[in-house]
């Protein structure tokens, strides 16, 4: 049924259709609306046979889900930002134990400085934890990916994160087609766990594993991810057949057939880039965009096939590995290893800095002239940075730079873009 609803609501309705049995909730902006909506649905008994548990921390949220999943219940939670760091130990643990938990990440920056706005630093910090990570481009896809995520998680016995841009998607009212219970039931079978805490068949789960076997256990996690490379496109195909629309898959190409310049991005940024690409196409530029939905497993072969005929690749990413540069770019460069395609990284949108078509077009035009550095920072206020560096040089006790920069900017108040106020 078509609805004009908030992204968080759409996600909650999709999760509800998946018949979750245990939902753990802890508030953190910007994912909170999702668990609020689910809590209400459980209380109104719109979701039947489901425990909604208000826990005391994100660490507990995922830990409760670990327990409920190990006891055979379909388990869900959601978090963001500091929350995923606070539960980091349990994130690795859930994957190591092979528990098919589904978790929404309302992508948000990580402090300090504290910042509630969108970027991808949070889920990227857990990219090697053994979870599958799927990034949603739109709210329709965010809803649809959750339905696929439970199926994927339970077929592989591997936890899945669905990454949804905080505020930009979670708080946006959009048109979303919410499927029927019958459609979802036909796609997502009952949860049949591969391991379960059962008093009739006692097993020990989570034993200590020494050097003689740890390596193999870890390799098997990699094997699951390799299997996911096959399963993710299959599930997306089946989804298209049953629901009549595209969602998920490893990657998607847009206007790439004859493209000389191909942009690579994740999440909601892709929509803005598509509009920028259309504008540039009209002006005669041969440019396209590849959207990576499955960041873990990283689809090296698919990315290579999509990019290898381009003259250049620009990776626009909302995350930043301090001290080296791009994170998505690393995977893209690995995918293109041995080819001669130059790959540029543009770090953009950190901490909610708006990524505008105007800036993107400027970036892509520079790329077409091969006038980019390997590592670029889109709309970074260089002058502000340089003034702060100079100030720090002048005095030893320069104080906190975040506050100094805010003071500097306040002095130039008119320069603040509206959305950043």
């Amino acid at each position, binding site marked *: 049924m078509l609805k004009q609803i908030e992204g968080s609501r759409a996600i909650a309705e999709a999760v509800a259709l998946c018949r979750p049995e245990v939902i753990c909730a802890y508030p953190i902006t910007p994912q909170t609306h999702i668990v609020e909506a689910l809590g209400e649905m459980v209380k109104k008994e719109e979701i039947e046979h489901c425990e909604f548990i208000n826990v*005391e921390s994100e660490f507990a949220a995922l830990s*409760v889900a670990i*327990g409920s999943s190990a006891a055979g219940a379909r388990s869900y939670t959601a978090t963001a930002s500091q929350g995923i760091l606070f539960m980091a130990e349990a994130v690795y643990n859930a994957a190591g134990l092979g528990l098919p938990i589904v978790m929404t990440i309302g992508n948000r920056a990580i402090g300090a400085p504290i910042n509630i706005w969108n970027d991808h630093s949070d889920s990227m910090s857990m990219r090697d934890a053994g979870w599958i990570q799927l990034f949603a481009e739109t709210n329709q896809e965010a809803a649809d990916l959750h339905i696929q995520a439970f199926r994927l998680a339970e077929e592989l016995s591997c936890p899945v994160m669905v990454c949804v841009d905080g505020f930009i998607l979670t708080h946006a009212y959009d048109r979303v087609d919410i499927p029927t219970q019958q459609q979802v039931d036909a796609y997502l079978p009952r949860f049949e766990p591969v391991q379960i805490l059962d008093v009739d068949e006692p097993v020990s789960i989570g034993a200590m594993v020494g050097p003689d076997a740890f390596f193999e256990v870890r390799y098997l996690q990699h094997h699951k991810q390799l299997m996911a490379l096959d399963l993710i496109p299959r599930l997306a195909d089946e989804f298209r057949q049953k629901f009549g629309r595209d969602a998920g898959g490893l990657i998607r190409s847009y206007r790439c057939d004859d493209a000389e310049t191909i942009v690579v991005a994740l999440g909601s940024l892709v929509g803005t880039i598509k509009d920028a690409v259309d504008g540039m196409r009209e002006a005669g530029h041969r440019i396209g965009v590849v959207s990576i939905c499955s960041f873990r497993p990283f689809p090296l072969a698919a990315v290579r096939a999509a990019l290898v005929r381009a003259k250049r690749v620009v990776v626009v990413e909302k995350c930043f590995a301090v001290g080296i540069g791009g994170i998505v770019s690393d995977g893209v460069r690995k995918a293109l290893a041995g080819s001669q395609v130059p790959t540029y990284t543009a770090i953009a949108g950190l901490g909610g800095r708006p990524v505008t078509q105007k800036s993107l077009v400027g970036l892509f035009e520079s790329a077409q002239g091969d006038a980019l550095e390997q590592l670029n920072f889109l709309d970074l206020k260089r002058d502000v940075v340089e003034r702060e560096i100079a100030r720090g040089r002048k005095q030893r006790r320069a104080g906190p730079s975040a506050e100094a920069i805010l003071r500097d900017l306040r002095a130039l108040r008119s320069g603040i873009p509206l959305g950043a106020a």
Partner: protein
Amino acid sequence: MTQQPVKFYQTGTFTVGNRLLPGDERAVQANMRRTNSLNSGHRACQGCGEALGARYAIDAAMQATGNRVIAINATGCLEVFSTPYPETSWQIPWMHSLFGNAAAVAAGVAAALRIKGGKGAKVIAQGGDGGTTDIGFGCLSGMFERNDDVLYICYDNEAYMNTGVQRSSATPPAARTATTMSVGRHPGNVFGTGKNVPLIAMAHHIPYVATASVANLRDLEAKVTRAMGVSGARYIHIHVPCPLGWGSQPADTIKIARLAVESGLFPLFEAVDGEVTARYQLRRRVPVEDYLRLQRRFAHLFGATPDTQTIAAIQAMADRNVRTFGLEAA
């Protein structure tokens, strides 16, 4: 199991001669039908109080539930010595997740059991004092305040033994640990620190809280049995000597545990809905010195010139417990 006063006890140990009782009056551990939930062959040290405590507690819980117990274990000695991959001593469904989340994982299992039916299974979470009073404290408090249907058992050996005897918030004052060495002007652990988790558990007004000791097997089993008959969040804090960490003889584990009780340093009591409802009255109080002397972690208090001031301060703690909990037999 009913409890009845038994008049025979062996000198020095008070241990009840089970064989002289009728079959259904015997302790679970003396019963041929005990489940050996934590089976033999594990890798605990000689004289390990925690291994004893865990077997007593889980076997009693198994008997109380018709063998329907799922256990969640925090990281720690109990977890490590019981499950060296690919072996396991656990005869029951058992899971270890992390050091600090046993209470939360158990809450999750309890939630799943409510939804899935669960064949009448009951959940126990267990951990050492570090996993309970320190790193797992947040999850423990959350489990308590939500009144999740979990019995949490803390096996308190008063330090981080698995990592090599470091101080925890359950380490008593003056005790030597690897991070409170017996050096300097105030050797051992600092006075005026630590926390009493049974009292904190009571402050959550959960339906059942108890302390127990491996020295008092029948009392321990009775408390576990009672706890398994109650729904909601329950907490049992069991004092379990550690020969390695305390520097005591493996053969003295029960004796030392008993001296902790009989000196008043480790009061045994039960609390229902936040109120103390029963306490174990001391029949023959002993000075704390008798308890301290058997442990090398307190050796710096004795020697050529005993530290009478510190010993007196520890005695004062015992005296306060006796007053606070009403331990002195009338």
